[in-house]
Structure formats: structure tokens, C-alpha cells
């Protein structure tokens, strides 16, 4: 396949960025999207140019590192996949492919397509845990958990923290990310005692960091590579209301 790659280039956080267009030839349709970028970078290096910086690591859709906005969609045109699992057969020969970084005030660009997602970390520090120390915990089977609850908690826990929800949300809201964690723990007896407090703290942190509010468009769910349901946002809202009523 031959393609035109229109990609966002930005030297560093402070520099002004812009698009560059590159021609790339003989890409195998069986290549993954990131392998296509590898080829582009190899080509740029051979031409004495600087390669395009992009985040990636596991390349099997679980680490959450890759984060590209491709042809107007987070993680590109395929559904339920991360960028690393997107394959070139989803594109047409001769097509122009536009690649942009995640865009959100809370995710400043570090370089080219790499953004700083430290805001997610800060949200997690504010409450994304169950307060237990190592050791001194009851036996794993001491508390029975209905299978349905464990399964629903697992659905939420599948979040890989990639930020596609923020990138695609018209409001740059991190609600799905926060909801996935709050809902996972709220659904389990271990996380219940702190459920309302957790919701309040994490939402407050999210607002403080400049993420937008949720207007329930559902775009996050549609673009989430793990298909996390916005029903978890409803649970977050319940826990949040509980916390507010208690105050």
C-alpha cells in the first residue's frame, strides 16, 4: 500500500506545532498502524530527518500507552481496539491519513504525538485505591462476592487508562476513566466503605485539573478500546450524590 501521512509535528511543549505530510510506500496491509509509523520513522532517519515521536509499549492492546487520534477518531477507524491493534488493511491504498495527538488542556503535548497524561495519575492518587496495607487481610474466600458483582467490577476494571475517552469527548471529560475505577470498587465489598468518599475526591480532583464536565454524549464508550459502559458513569453519579448528601 502507498499512503500519505499527515502528522502533527511539535518540537516540545512550548513550541508551535504544525502538520507535515509524508509519502510512504510499500506498507503491508498486515502491518499494524504503529509498524507503519516505524517504517515512516526508518525512512525519516535515512533521510537525515527527525523521526516522529509517539507513545507505544506493549503493542498488544493492554498497556494503554499508545494514544493517536487518527482520521478524526481516537485509536482510528476500527472499533474496540487500541492504535497498536489497528491494522493497515482498515485503510485504502492512496489514502491520506491524518494523525493528531490527544487534544485536551489537561494533556499537554510533550513532543509530536506524545502527550503528558500525568493528570490521570493525580486523579488516581486522590482516591483510586482501597485503603489496605500489605498483610493482615482476611482470607480471599472470607467474603463471598456474587459472580455478577465480580463480573461487573471486572468490566469496569478493564480500563487501560489510555485517555481515549478524554480525547474523544467534546468536553474533554475524564468521567469514564474516573467512573471505571469508582464503579469497580463500589461494586465490591472491599471497596464499599470508602465508595462515596472516593467518588467525591476523584471527581473534585478531575474538575481541579481542568477536565470538562460530562454531558452524556456516549462518545467515550463508543471509542473506548475496552468497551467500558457509561452505565459506570451512572454509578459514579450515584456515589457522588451520596457523598454530597452526607456533607
Amino acid at each position: 500500500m502507498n499512503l500519505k501521512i499527515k502528522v502533527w509535528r511539535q518540537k516540545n511543549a512550548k513550541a508551535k506545532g504544525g502538520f507535515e505530510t509524508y509519502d510512504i510506500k510499500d506498507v503491508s496491509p498486515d502491518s499494524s498502524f504503529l509498524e507503519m509509523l516505524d517504517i515512516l520513522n526508518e525512512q525519516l532517519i535515512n533521510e537525515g530527518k527527525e523521526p516522529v515521536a509517539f507513545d507505544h509499549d506493549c503493542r498488544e492492546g493492554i498497556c494503554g500507552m499508545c494514544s493517536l487520534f487518527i482520521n478524526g477518531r481516537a485509536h482510528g477507524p476500527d472499533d474496540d481496539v487500541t492504535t497498536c491493534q489497528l491494522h493497515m488493511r482498515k485503510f485504502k491504498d492512496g489514502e491520506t491519513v491524518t494523525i493528531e495527538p490527544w487534544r485536551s488542556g489537561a494533556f499537554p503535548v510533550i513532543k509530536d504525538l506524545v502527550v503528558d497524561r500525568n493528570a490521570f495519575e493525580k486523579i488516581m492518587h486522590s482516591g483510586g485505591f482501597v485503603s489496605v496495607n500489605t498483610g493482615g487481610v482476611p482470607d480471599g474466600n472470607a467474603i463471598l462476592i456474587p459472580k455478577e458483582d465480580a463480573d461487573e467490577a471486572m468490566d469496569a476494571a478493564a480500563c487501560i487508562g489510555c485517555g481515549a475517552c478524554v480525547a474523544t469527548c467534546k468536553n474533554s471529560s475524564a468521567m469514564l476513566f474516573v467512573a471505571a475505577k469508582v464503579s469497580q470498587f463500589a461494586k465490591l465489598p472491599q471497596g464499599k466503605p470508602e465508595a462515596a468518599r472516593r467518588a467525591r475526591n476523584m471527581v473534585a480532583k478531575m474538575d481541579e485539573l481542568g477536565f470538562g464536565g460530562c454531558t452524556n454524549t456516549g462518545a467515550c464508550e463508543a471509542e473506548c478500546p475496552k468497551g467500558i459502559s457509561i452505565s459506570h458513569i451512572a454509578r459514579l453519579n450515584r456515589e457522588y450524590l451520596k457523598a454530597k448528601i452526607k456533607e
Partner: protein
Amino acid sequence: MTKLNSNIPGGPIKDKWTNHKANINVVSPANKRKLDIIIVGTGLAGASAASSLAELGYNVKLFCIQDSPRRAHSIAAQGGINAAKNYQNDNDSVYRLFYDTVKGGDYRAREANVYRLAEVSGSIIDQCVAQGVPFARDYGGLLDNRSFGGVLVSRTFYARGQTGQQLLLGAYSALNRQIGKGSVKMYNRHEMLDVVTIDGKARGIITRNLVTGEIERHGAHAVVIGSGGYGNVFFLSTNAMNSNTSAAWQIYKKGAMFANPCFTQIHPTCIPVHGEQQSKLTLMSESLRNDGRIWVPKKMEDVEKLRKKEIRPADIKEEDRDYYLERRYPAYGNLVPRDVASRAAKERCDAGFGVNETGKAVFLDFATAINRLGKDVIEARYGNLFQMYEKITDDNPYETPMQIYPAIHYTMGGTWVDYNLMTTVPGLYSIGEANFSDHGGNRLGASALMQGLADGYFVLPYTIGDYLSNEIQTPKIDTERPEFKEAEEAVKQKITKLINNNGKKSVDSIHKELGKIMWDHVGMARNEAGLKEAIDQIQELKKDFWTNVVVPGTSDEFNQELEKAIRLADFIELGDLMARDALNRSESCGGHFREESCTPDGEAQRKDDEFAYVSVWEHKGEKEEPALHKEELKFEEVELKQRSYK
């Protein structure tokens, strides 16, 4: 030989850990506050150690190269975690888990460490449940188990096909709590480039801020390396793209000896390489072999037609198919251990029967199982894996057989540590896949997660206290000391050299060359001539790298090519050590198969009288050859047997 003291406590094996804990020193809470610990790596081992140590009151500085601790490659483990809970009442016990692990490791692991691992395995499950890890449960609300990796009991706990992810997120959540409290200082996007020793003790590290390029000094009373394995030496592996050996390699060069580097695990069920543009290999869960049958055509003409796509796999008649695992190993069939299945696939492909264009793939066929059980049952068992396969290959495994080929997956070798997980450098520890301690020559399925968390939650927090109890008089480490300056200078020189090299070859192109040498000669089957050739080729490649590599950009910015170049320099040197170790160990053992050492029918032949030891390599300087030390392995609890799967 004097340097190696494994510090295994005396007494019966079942009392060793208990007695040891009772006898080692502890640090008072007031003194813990004064002590700093550096941890490198945030996988299962690093994250669990950091949170546990911070809970105890130590000041922890934690480093990872990714933008978040949650990205560490532990996240990608699929299958599960073993624990000797005996919840299924199938006569599992600490002893049985210990025995299986020693036997599965082909009798090259240290008994006392493995027993301790089995002993604390149950507590890991309890800990993770308390953290909110959503393990699979049955309808009664109890934890579910499955059997895994050819053992006789069901002791594997799992969270769908994402057990590693969930366990890591559990440790990550504990870590977040400590970061929020300020007891762990987190350094994301920081790479350790050297360790600093003062008067023989580890006292700090030199790091590069990957965003700004700044070289930084960090001091501490102890340094812990949890940076994972070195499978990426092969370029193509199931490891993450950024997984590297640099932390482990830098401490090797500063005196921490490296054990059993040749012990690498090859996983039989990975998606085959599609071509030269491939960057990484994807693992398909081993559980697929429970229902899939592995075969290649018997006739070469069928192979040729398959490659030209003139016929489909289903067109080949039953009597023209070679179910080679069922043929060679009638007792275990398709369920033989990973190393055996991998070698058998390679044997068929080397004989020319590989079924794809590259000649490096065999079929994993579910047609029989679908006929017997129905498509619904197969979908319920493997639906997500089939879907993943189809996303990657565009083939529907319900209709046509999967194609698989072995790939590098895990490295059993690593930094040598004693019973306390301390390396040969005092105050320097190594945990998780980065150390060598528990898996011997071959790791059993669902044991890697167990080991990482055992080290981090339940072993290191105790043993490090014994060392630190003697450090309570040591003030904060002064990073202005000459040792820090020297280390920083050396790192800067290396970076400057790479940036100014201006060669013609990209880092990846050289890495691919290294990968080819390693795969061809230090891969699934090894022999003396090949290994010697590999050592020569690697020496050539090393020269080639330092003269011809090109690293675009500058050192004081976000520069991924520079990161890769620094890591590749270390991979090249490690590759050399792996070949040397493989050359020395002229037996076949676990993941290490020497063609010279096999039974008349081509099966692996261990040589216990010659090689029942850990090969421990000491760095002697850039120009010198490394020195081999041996830690003799004494087996008091288990009897050494040759494995047979016929």
C-alpha cells in the same frame, strides 16, 4: 567461589523462612523514616515492593520509564496466578506447588527460594482480594480456579484473560495511595542509566529525565531493581517494545553478578511473523492447546499449494495431516510443556513443512473440538482470543485453523541474588523477573505473577530490613560525592558519543541484526559451533553499532531514538554473555536445548552430575572476558528425574 553466599537458612525446608524471619533484624518506625530506598521499575515486583515499603514507613523513590507505573509489562500477562490454597480440595499443598515448580524448572532452581515462594503464595491472593482485584468467582461467590500448564491440580486464580493487568492495577492502587500520602515519590518517564556504589555499597542511581533529557542523581540507603526480563535481546519477542535490560546490565557492570543468562523461555502459541515490517509478537494463551490440535501437512506438495494459496487447510485430507505432537508424545499429545511443543514446531518447520509464506508457522486446529463440543462451547472458552486473532490476522479461526509459531516470552535468568534477594553488591537488591531465583531452567505457566508479587509484598519488605538495620547511622546520601559525579560523567559521555556518532544505520536496523543472530544461534536449539559463531558475530555487531549507529536529535530533549540506542548497547553486550553461558552449559535443560545433549530419539538430555549448578557471571572489565562462578544446587527435598512426556 568465595564471593557467592546464598545465605540459605538452616533447618528443615518448611521452617527455613519462618526461622529466618524470626532471626533477622527489624528497623524501628522512627528509624525507617530516616531511610531512603530507591526502586527501579513498577511492574508487579516493583510496585508491590514500593507500596509495602512505604506502608512500613520508609521513604521510597520509585522510577519508571513509561508515563505511568501502570504501563509496566506485567500488565500483559493473561493466564493467571498460582497459589497453594487447596480451595478445590484436590490435594494441593505448599509442598506440591514447590515440587511442581522445581520439577517444571528442570531442577535448576534453588529449593529454599521456591519453597518460600509456594509458602507465601496464598497470602498474595488474600492481599489482592482485599485490594479489590476482581478475580473470577463461581456462582456461590467463592474464588474460581482453573488448571494451567499441565499440572495435576487446579490452583490458578484468574481475572478473565487479564490477570496480569488486574494484579498490576491492584499493586498500582496500593502505590497510588502511598504516592498520594507523599511516602512514595514517583518519577515517571525517568530511566536509570547507572548505579552508584560507595565503599562497595549501593548508594544511589543516575537517571535521565526522558522528557527534558536532564541527567539526575538520586541517593538512597538501598537500591532495588525490578526492571523485568531481557527477552527483547531477540528484537522480536512478546515483551513490550520498551522492555529492556539496561538497569540489570548496569548493575552487572558495577559488580552484581548475572546468573543463568542462557535460560530463556519460548512460548509455543504466538501469532507468526508476517514479514520484515513486524515489530513485535503477540502471544495467544496457552489454554488454546486444551482444545486445539497442532498439525502440518505430511506431503510437501500440499505445503507448496498452501503457500501459493491454491488450497485451503480444510482441503487437506485427514490421512495427509501430521499431528506431530500426538505422534511423538502419545501420553501428553498437544499438552506437552512449552519448551517441548516449541522445539517440535521448529523441527517440522526446519524440515520444510511450515504452512505460511515464510515457512515458519504450524496449524492450531479447532475443527475437531468444534465438531465434538459445538461452536458455542468453543466460543465461550476462547471467544476473546479468537477475536484477537482475527483482528490481527484477518482470519476467522472458527472456519480455518489458526497459524502459530514459537516466540521468546520470558527470561528465567537474571541478576544473581541470595536468599534475601540481595545481589553480590551489598544494599543492591533484585526482584521479580529481573532476578534469577525461582524458575530454574523453565518457568511454569501462572508462576511469573506469583513470583513478582511474592518478592514485592512478602519477601523484600522483611529481608531489606535486615540490611537497613545496620544503616540507621548512615545520614542522607550526599549526591555531591565524587562517586556520583564520576557516574554522571560516564553516562553523559556515553550519550554524547551516541548523539555525535552520525553513522548510517538506524538503531532498529542494528537491533534486528542482533535479533537474527540470537534467534539463529541462541534460540530454540543451540550447538557449539553456532554459539561460537554467535559470539564472533556479536563482537562484530558491537563494533558496527559504535561506529555506524545514527541517533537523530539532541540529548536534552524527548528523544526516543536515543533511549533505544542506550538500551541496544546493553542488549548487545548481554547477547554476548547469553551465548557464552549457553556455550558453557553443554547440557539440555528446560528452555536451553543443546543439540549435542539429547537422547537417541531427539529429546532433551539433562546432565545432573556436571551441571547441577547456577552459572554466575562476573564482569571483569570491558576488555576482559567475564568470569564464571558456580553456585552448587543441593536437592534435599526432591529427587532429580529426567522429564518424559511420551
